[in-house]
């Protein structure tokens, strides 16, 4: 009998790659917390608990054609779309060479044109209409790409969510929206944020497909995004996907996480996708002990090297502040 991933058309190598990307995101994220706690970088914001959704989704997209508009937790997406760990570390250290912003933005505000990662800002949900704009361009220019946009569940209460998705719905634009529902918007739990029974049901307001998937299962997310992409390319419009998981860390390095119970976090960590997916791959005999060792070693050296490089790299010159307000 075929196992889950072959049924989805994924090879053993592909699921290994998915796992490796998840693990890489986790390890980079962990390093950033260490750097923050040791005073080397002033801020970090985390993907931990959301890697499966991010990586599963990315692998269902076309990394040569599609545009992504990630939000601040989407380390797993940008790594999958070609941003390097060195790029990330240069960003974390706010160095001149940071391709996202030249050290201008806080970490997590991704953007890299060559990899079709759309530049993002801090005010949440503004990226939703942008992604719709890319999808509108796809339709106008008759191009076969989709845009993929993510946000938190709290952010789905912003007006831009409603306005953007309705626009996409009216014109059946090829945009896939994935809400990463991690149960909290900083301190405010889901039931104080959102009046609907879940997030994906909001798709009915926009005449589009909506689906809630287990955000700890990269294969489930892969499948949902793959199907959504197929519909989008076929001219059937957008999809609203809700990937449910849990935020393992504090909201950010500035948050003391004083509003939720330690047990709740411990409980959630039992569903850690990195652990569960590794188990699956081990059971399927795809992830061997040897491979695992090699992978860990490789990731460690990538992260170490990137950290060292970024730490040594120069800051922008003070006068660089004045550059790029307008086109030169």
């Amino acid at each position: 009998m075929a196992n889950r991933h072959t049924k989805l058309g994924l090879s053993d190598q592909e699921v290994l790659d998915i796992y490796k990307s998840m693990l890489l995101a986790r390890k980079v994220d962990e390093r950033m917390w260490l750097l923050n706690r040791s005073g080397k970088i002033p801020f970090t914001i985390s993907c931990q608990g959301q890697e499966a959704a991010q990586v599963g989704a990315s692998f269902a997209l076309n990394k040569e054609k599609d545009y992504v508009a990630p939000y601040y937790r989407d380390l797993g997406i940008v790594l999958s779309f070609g941003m390097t760990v060195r790029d990330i570390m240069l960003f974390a250290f706010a160095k001149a060479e940071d391709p996202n912003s030249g050290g201008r933005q806080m970490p997590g505000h991704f953007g890299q044109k060559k990899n079709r990662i759309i530049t993002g800002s801090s005010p949440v949900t503004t990226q939703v209409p942008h992604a719709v704009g890319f999808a509108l361009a796809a339709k106008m220019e008759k191009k076969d790409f989709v845009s993929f946009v993510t946000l938190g569940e709290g952010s789905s209460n912003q007006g831009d969510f409603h306005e953007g998705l309705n626009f996409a719905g009216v014109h059946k634009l090829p945009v896939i929206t994935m809400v990463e529902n991690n149960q909290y918007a900083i301190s405010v739990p889901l039931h104080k944020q959102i009046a609907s029974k879940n997030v994906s049901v909001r798709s009915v307001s926009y005449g589009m497909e909506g689906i809630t998937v287990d955000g700890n299962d990269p294969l489930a997310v892969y499948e949902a995004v793959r199907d959504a992409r197929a519909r989008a390319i076929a001219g059937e419009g957008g999809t609203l996907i809700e990937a449910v998981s849990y935020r393992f860390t504090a909201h950010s390095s500035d948050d003391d996480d004083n509003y939720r119970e330690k047990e709740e976090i411990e409980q959630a960590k039992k569903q850690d996708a990195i652990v569960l997916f590794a188990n699956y791959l081990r059971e399927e005999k795809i992830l061997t002990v040897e491979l695992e060792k090699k992978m860990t070693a490789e990731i460690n050296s990538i992260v170490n090297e990137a950290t060292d490089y970024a730490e040594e790299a120069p800051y922008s010159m003070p006068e660089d502040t004045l550059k790029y307000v307008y086109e030169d």
Partner: protein
Amino acid sequence: MPIMSYIQAITLALREEMLRDDKVFILGEDVGKKGGVFRATDGLYDEFGEYRVLDTPLAESAIAGVGIGAAMYGMRPVAEMQFADFILPAVNQIISEAAKTRYRSNNDWSVPITIRAPYGGGVHGALYHSQSVEAIFANQPGLKIVMPSGPYDAKGLLKAAIRDNDPVLFFEHKRAYRLLKEEVPDDDYVLPIGKADIKREGTDITVITYGLCVHFALQAAEKLAEEGISTHILDLRTVYPLDKESIIKAASKTGKVLLITEDNLEGSIIGEVAAIIAENCLFDLDAPIMRLAGPDVPAMPYAPTMEKYFMVNPDKCEKAMRELAEF
């Protein structure tokens, strides 16, 4: 050269740019089938089709935000806000996104969008169809704000705005739409964004203003000329960022400066103009800087008595100009 109204010049500029570059498209409320509530896009839907002249849902933040996304991709959106007053739901997209995209991405991404909106009063539009909203945006580096005073400028500046690789807010005076007519070449010309323009040479007093008030000031200057008062009139054209050099030159030329805006006074564009003068050519002045503006009330009322009381007009300009000349 054909005589054209202000709005005809706008329509022509749109059409020419759409013909020139098929990345240019229009989006907004009622811009398509209806041709716009002021008819600015008249005929373009029939000529270019539904997706080049897109009737959007009634949602300004999406009009701006979707436009910004399309612009980042490489399109050339021209978004219409039905009235300048209704740009306010889109402020976050304009200030947080359009204005900051190039800067925040270290020049990697850019937003070549033009956002057009009819502004201004004197049309019985009451509080929410009469406002001047430029000051809200005139503190946001990354944005440019253009406010043409007449048909010729309107065409040349709108074409420049559409070709500009940064976001431009383009405010058109709705009363000027049909009031002002002049010769407008029907060939391809663009006017420079960021440069003020001398609309009248003079030696006694300097008036610095923009938009419909340029027209009022010109009318007043004609009258004063009969009394032997010679007025120099500088039209800002681009109200943000300001053309400092031209302002300083114009102010220094006569040493007597009147600044005029249709907006309410405090916090308006002309405050910054005054500051530039006070910083740079204070000792060239022979009179205190004088300002003429609307009163500091939330917006223009509907009743004709109050609307007239609020609105700048040629008489008020003339009075202020004479007072300044006599200082």
